[in-house]
């Protein structure tokens, strides 16, 4: 028997560069698990569905996936899609008892999914915005030389949430830090960020926090590098594909990111072997989605614990489960289905073990950049309805 897991994410068009490497990571992870005897003896099969990052199209693909027998959904690109899938999965499970489906979210980071909008059917394997912000502010708090912080983001829920979290957490951890700017700009519409950088320079900021992704992130940091600005731009998505290639050396000491791990961290030989294997199999992309491996490992462990691959049983078994991930222990918190894991603040530097984007630049852990899972953790307001 095989366990079908539907991977629903963009696999064509401009956003395919986020979907593809994730799919490859899941495939590789599944191969490894299958090679080690599978899940309770069954093999995992990852079936890709292209959703073109459209919430509505995702629903079509979701229906297709469910009809083809997939009981587990993997998705991560775009909170709008994730939100649509959470809703749709809940409705489906309510309307089709006995045919439940679980949703493993590996990258959509809106905090609400594991707070007020939490669902028993949803598990998140990435740290959400507030947790990542916790890591960033933790690190900022340790840096006494940072006195002024500028916040800039995209004008929509995500950008607003990032800004709100940054303000609140900085106030708590370092009340002396002055927020010298809190700016929102429309999503994916700005071509030239020079005026924004100019504003940042004028404000005398020592660090910039941004939740920007895609072009908005790259262009912002590029404009900063062009203006000769050498202050940390703390990002969530600096590690996404092609960003470092686009920035070149301008990224050094400017571009910072927070993530659950980078290839240049100390790790076990198995992890290095895995990275090598990935690089060899998929030369177009860098090893980035370590979460994919954690996700499937946790699934494997939960199924084993439950002695079943039935979604409800697996879900219950997964609650509170702990596995050993590549860069530290990872625990699935039972109250809200949010994975608790270590986070790392890294920056771009030369002469690293692994380069990114086929350049000679790589990610390096910054001083005090390792943030423990406890420190990154945030409380949840989740009140989940559980099935009998």
């Amino acid at each position, binding site marked *: 028997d095989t366990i079908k897991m539907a991977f629903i994410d963009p696999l064509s068009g401009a956003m395919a560069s986020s979907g*593809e490497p994730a799919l490859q990571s899941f495939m590789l992870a599944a191969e490894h698990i299958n090679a080690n005897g599978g899940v309770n003896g069954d093999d995992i099969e990852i079936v890709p569905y292209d959703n073109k990052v459209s919430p509505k199209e995702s629903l079509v693909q979701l229906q297709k996936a469910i009809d083809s027998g997939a009981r587990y959904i993997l998705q991560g690109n775009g909170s709008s899609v994730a939100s649509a899938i959470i809703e749709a999965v809940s409705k489906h499970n309510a309307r089709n008892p006995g045919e439940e489906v679980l949703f493993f979210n590996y990258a959509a980071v809106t905090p609400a999914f594991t707070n007020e909008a939490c669902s028993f059917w949803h598990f998140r394997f990435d740290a959400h915005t507030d947790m990542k912000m916790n890591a960033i502010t933790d690190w900022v708090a340790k840096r006494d030389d940072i006195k002024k912080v500028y916040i800039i983001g995209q004008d929509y829920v995500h950008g607003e949430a990032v800004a709100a979290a940054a303000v609140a957490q900085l106030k708590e951890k370092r009340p002396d830090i002055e927020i010298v700017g809190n700016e*929102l700009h429309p999503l994916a*519409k700005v071509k*030239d960020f020079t005026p924004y950088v100019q504003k940042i320079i004028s404000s005398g900021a020592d660090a910039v926090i941004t939740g920007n992704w895609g*072009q908005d992130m790259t262009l912002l940091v590029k404009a900063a590098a062009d203006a*000769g600005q050498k202050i940390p731009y703390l990002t969530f998505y600096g590690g996404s594909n092609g960003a470092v290639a*686009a920035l*070149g050396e301008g990224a050094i000491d400017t571009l910072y990111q927070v993530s659950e791990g980078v290839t240049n961290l100390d790790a076990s030989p198995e992890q290095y072997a895995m990275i090598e294997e990935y690089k060899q199999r998929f030369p177009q992309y860098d090893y980035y989605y370590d979460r994919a491996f954690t996700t499937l490992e946790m699934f494997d462990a939960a199924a084993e614990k439950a002695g079943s691959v039935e979604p409800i049983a697996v879900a219950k078994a997964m609650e509170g489960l702990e596995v050993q991930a590549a860069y530290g222990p990872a625990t699935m918190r039972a109250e809200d289905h949010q994975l608790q894991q270590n986070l790392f603040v890294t920056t771009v530097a030369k002469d690293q073990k692994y380069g990114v984007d086929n350049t000679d630049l790589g990610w390096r852990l910054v001083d005090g950049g390792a943030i423990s899972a406890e420190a990154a953790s945030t409380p949840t307001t989740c009140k989940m309805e559980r099935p009998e």
Partner: protein
Amino acid sequence: METVVFALLNGVIYGLLLFMLSSGLTLIFSMMGVLNFAHASFYMLGAYFAYTLMEGSNFWIALFIAPVLVGLAGMVVERYGLRKVHARGHVAELLFTFGLAYLIDEVVKIFWGRTAVNYKVPELLDFPLFTLYGAQYPAYRIFILLVAILMLVALWYLLRRTRAGLIIQAALTHPHMVGHLGHNVPMIFMMVFGAGCALAGLAGVIGGNYFITDPAMAVQMGPIVFVVVVVGGLGSLEGAFIAAMLIGLLQTSAVSINASLADIFGFLGLAGTSEVGGITIASMAPMLPFLLLVLVLMVRPTGLMGDREV
């Protein structure tokens, strides 16, 4: 003071950049009446060609060869594609280029992958020219400025001073008649389209490393280029130039205004805490060109400087 200087300087440079991007489109639009939706795709091709050429040679060679290659590609497109649909009117042409943009985007992804390539500014120009109020000004920006002005002059000459301009404008309404007068209309159309695409390619060579060279760059730039050309007015190079500058200045100065709508319209009872009131001018800056587009067309369908309805 500081704000004003910055806004002016950045506005002018951004405006020139926009002009550079849209000049080829203006050429094609004003001479052939074709609103080339794929224009930004040719811009992208220019960047990618230059990137590839740079691997085997250097920037300066790429600067000359890449636009020529893009121009040739444009001529092929005109000869074997656009010419076929030309007889069926502007909507068909527009849709053809609309589809072409799709195709070019996909082909670029096949050849160069889906993520950004490391297309670098040439070493020779990769230094800060001067520093103003703490911000460095890369020499490359000034280089862009010079090229943009050069393009303006060359185009102005082509449009105003050559008979080819007249012939093509005549061929817009009566292609057969122009043929009966002994002018090789298809040939001229092909050349013009090629030239327009080459200009887009040149903008790509220069803009690709200033911004980012990735498969999304065409989609990113597409709409704004249209706004410039349409706001400027059909058949008007000056219009395109003025529109580009206007948009450049408008947008950069709006970024530096932190006032919110509540601050401005507070006297009408708009509260800063309300959703509308909380919007700042700065956050609306990138939408201003589209607002301008709608307003200008409503008041003047010919665009700012155009002499014909777009």
